[in-house]
C-alpha cells in the first residue's frame, strides 16, 4: 500500500520539477531540475524492480540512471560552460502569464476529456497528463535551444511515468531501446546546439529566422 503512496510522491516531485523548470531563468537550474526528475524516475523503477524482483527491470533502471542522471546533465553543463550561454533562458511570456497557462493546462488535464483513464486518480491525472502538457508548453515558451532540449527530455520522462502508472510495461528490451534512443537524441541535440552557437553566436532560437530570408 505504501508503495502506491511513494510512487505518487515521486510523480508529485516530477510534476514540481516541471513547474520549477517553467519558472527558472537560468539554464543550470533547468538542468538540475531535470536531474532530480530523472532521479525520481530511477527511484520508481528501482522500487518496481525490487518489488517484482525481476532482473531485467533492474538492468533498465541502471541504464536509466547512467544515461539520464549522469551523462545527459554532464553534456548540457559542458555546453553551458564552454559557451558561457548561461543567462539565455529567456521566455516569451513573463512568469505570471506562464503560471496562468500552467493552471489552465492542469484544469484541462483535470477535465473529463481524459476521464477514460480510470486507472489514474484525479490527482495522478493532473500530475502526469498535466506534466506532459506543461513540458510541451515549456518547450514552446523558451527561446533558448538548451532549454528546449530539456523541455523535450522532461516530456519524455513524463510519458515514461505516465506509461508506467497506466501499467503499459513493455518488454525490457523495448525500454532499453527507448533509452538508447533518448541517449543518441541527446548527443545529436548537443552537437546541434554547438553548431547553432558556432554559426549564430548565441543559442537564441529566434536567430533561426535568418534561415528563411
Amino acid at each position, binding site marked *: 500500500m505504501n508503495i502506491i503512496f511513494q510512487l505518487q510522491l515521486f510523480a508529485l516531485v516530477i510534476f514540481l520539477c516541471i513547474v520549477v523548470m517553467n519558472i527558472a531563468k537560468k539554464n543550470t537550474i533547468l538542468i538540475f531540475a531535470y536531474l532530480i526528475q530523472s532521479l525520481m524516475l530511477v527511484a520508481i523503477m528501482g522500487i518496481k524492480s525490487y518489488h517484482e524482483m525481476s532482473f531485467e527491470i533492474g538492468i533498465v533502471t541502471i541504464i536509466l540512471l547512467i544515461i539520464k542522471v549522469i551523462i545527459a546533465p554532464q553534456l548540457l553543463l559542458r555546453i553551458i560552460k564552454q559557451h558561457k550561454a548561461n543567462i539565455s533562458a529567456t521566455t*516569451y511570456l513573463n512568469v505570471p502569464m506562464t503560471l496562468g497557462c500552467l493552471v489552465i493546462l492542469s484544469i*484541462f488535464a483535470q477535465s*473529463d*476529456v*481524459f476521464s477514460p483513464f480510470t486507472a489514474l486518480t484525479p490527482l495522478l491525472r493532473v500530475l502526469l497528463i498535466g506534466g506532459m*502538457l506543461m513540458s*510541451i*508548453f515549456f*518547450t*514552446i*515558451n*523558451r*527561446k533558448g535551444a538548451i532549454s*528546449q532540449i530539456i523541455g523535450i527530455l522532461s516530456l519524455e520522462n513524463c510519458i515514461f511515468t505516465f506509461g508506467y502508472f497506466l501499467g503499459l510495461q513493455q518488454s525490457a528490451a523495448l525500454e532499453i531501446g527507448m533509452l538508447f534512443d533518448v541517449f543518441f537524441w541527446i548527443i545529436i541535440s548537443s552537437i546541434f546546439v554547438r553548431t547553432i552557437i558556432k554559426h549564430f553566436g548565441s543559442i537564441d*532560437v*529566434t536567430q*533561426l*529566422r535568418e*534561415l*528563411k530570408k
Partner: protein
Amino acid sequence: MQNLFFTSLLVLTGGSIISLIVQRDTKLSYVSSVFSMFGSLLALIFSIGALITQSTLTTTLPTSFPMFNISLHIDPLAAFFILIVSLIALPASLYGIGYMKQYAKEYNLGVFGFFYNIFLISLLLVITAHNALYFLFVWEIMSLSSLFLVIFENKKLQIIKSGFIYFIMTHAATAFILLSFLLLFQFTGSFDFETIKQHFASIPFVIQTIIFLCMIIGFGTKAGIVPFHIWLPWAHSAAPSHVSSLMSGVMIKIGIFMLFKMFLDILPQTPLWLGYVVLIIGAVSSILGVLYALSEHDIKRLPAYHSIENIGIILLGLGSGLIFIALKQPSLAMLAITAGLFHTLNHAVFKSLLFLGAGSVISQTHTRNIEEYGGLIKLMPYTAIFFLVGAVAISGLPPFNGFVSEWLTFQSLFSGIATSSILIKSIFIFGAACLTFTGGLAAACFVKAFGITFLARSRSIESEKATEVSPLLLISMGTLAVLCLTLGVFSFFVITNIQLIVKNLSLFSSKTSSLSSTGISLQVNQNVAHLNMPVIFLVMAVFIALSFGLVYIVSRKQKVVLRTVWDCGFNALSPKMEITATGFSRTLILIFRGIFQPSKQHEIEYVDADIRYFSKSKTVTLGIVNIYEAYLYYPLHNGLSIISKQIRKIQSGNVNQYLLYIFILLLGLLIFARY
C-alpha cells in the same frame, strides 16, 4: 494467346533496360527502337488474335498490399485499343530509328529509349488494368514517362515550360480521377472494377453525379476536351515528332478508352443528362479545336489542335450513344458507339501520319514555323504525298477513312434529330451543325497547312536546302498512308468487327444494331442510308481516268510550254509575295472575331523622328487572345496566388510558433477524439 501479351511486355522492358545499358555510344541507340518495334508487333498480333476469338482474358496477381492487386482484364474493347496502340507504335518506332539521329550529338538517346519503352509498356498496361489502384499506378507511370519524353530536348527553355504545363494538367486530371475512384471505393467497398460494376446501382444519385462529373473532367483533361485542352498543344509540339504522334494518336485515346469503359461497361445505365453533357462538350471542343487550329502557324501545334477537334467528334459519337441508351434505343446507341470507336482508330492513324510528316519536314528545315516553308513538294515529294493523304483523310474527304467515320457520326446524329422531344432534337441539331462546320473548317485549315508548307516556292533559305528524308522514315509514313486508304475503302470489314466489340459490351449483349453491312455496303436503320466505299473508290478512279482519256483524245497535239508565273509584267515575283499562313486564315479569324478577339498593332520606325515621311521599318503584329487563358486560367491563377499569399503569413520562421501550432492541434484532437 495470353503469353503473347506478356512476351511483348517482356520485350519492351528488355528494350528499356538495354537502352539504358548501351546509352553511351550513339551507334547502338537504335537498339531500343528495334526492341519497341518488336514488342509492339507482338502486341499487334495478340490484339488481332484476341479480336478474332472475341475472348476475354482475366488474370489477377495478388500483391502484398491490401487493396492493390494487379488484375488484367482484356475484353474485346481493350483488345481493340491495344490494336490501336500497337498499330501506331510500330511505324512510330520505325520512324524513331531514323529520326533520333539528329539528336544524337546533343542529347542522351539511351535515356530516351528507356522512357520510350516504359511509355509503351504503361500504355498497354493502362488499357488492361482492372483494379482502380493498379490503374492509377500505371496511369502515373504513363504520365511521368510521357513527361520525360516531352522534355527530351531540355536545352530549350520553351520545352521545359510546356513540359511543366503538361505535368500540372495531367496531375490535376489524376486528382479528379482519384476522387472519383475514392468515392466509388467508399460506396462499393472495393477498388476492383468487377465489384464496382455489381454494386454501382446502390450508390445514391448525388454521389453518382459527382462521380460522373469527376470522370468527365479527369479523363476529359487527359483526352483534351476544350476547357482543359491547354496542355495539349504545348506538350505535343514540344515532344520529338514520333513521340508526339504516339501521344496524340494513342495517349489521348486512353482518356477516351476509359470514358467508353466507364460509361458503357463498368457503370451501366448512365443518366440522360450525362449524354447531353458529353455531346455538348464534344460539339464545342470540335468547333473550337478546329478554329484554334486555323489560327496556329506552327506545324506541330496545328495537328495538336486538330486532335482536340477529332476528340470532339469521337465524343459526339459517344454522347449520342449515351443519349440513345438513356432513351432505351440500343440499336441506335450501337451505331453511335461504333462511329465513335471507328473514328478513334481513324484519328489515331491519320494523326500520327500527320505528326510523322511534320517531323520529317522539321528535321529538314530545322524550324517549326509554317511561314518559313514552301516549295517542299519538289524537294521532298514522298513526304508531300503522305502528308497530303493525311490532310485529305483528316478533312474527311471521300476515298479515305476520315470520311467514313464522319459519315457514321452524321448518321447517328441524324437519327437523333429524328427523335420526338424538342430538347433532344435541338441538342442533336447543335451537334450536327458543329460537325458540319468542323468538317468545312478542317478542310480550310489543311489546305492552308499543306498549301503553305509544300506548294509554291520556298520562303526561306532553310527550306530551299531541304532534301528527302531517309527511306526508313518514308516506309513508316508510307505504311500509315496505305493504312488510311485501306481503312477507308475496306471500312465495311472493320466496322463489322467493331460491331462485334460493341455487341460484346454488357449493355448490348442481346440487341441488334441498326448498322448492318451486307456484302461490301453499309446500311443504317433498315436501309435509310447506304455507303459502299469500295464501289465509290472504283467509280471515282474510273471517272478520273475517263477524263484523262477524253482530254488525251481531244487535244493531244497541243504542246505544254513552261514559263514563269504571270506576274502582271512585274520583275520576278519574289517568294515573299506569296500568301502566308496568317494571310490565308485571316479572313476566317476576322469572321470569328467574337471567339478570337484578334488584335493588330502597327509600329512605324521613322528615319528621322520629326520628319514623319520616310519610315525606316514598319512592323504589324497580329495577336489573338487565347480566351481560355484569359478568362479561365489567369483568374484561377491569380485567385490561387492571392490565397497562398495569405496563408504564407503563418510561416513566420519562428520554431516556437510551429511548436505552438502542434500543441494547439494536439489539444484540439484530444477534444475531438473525446466527443
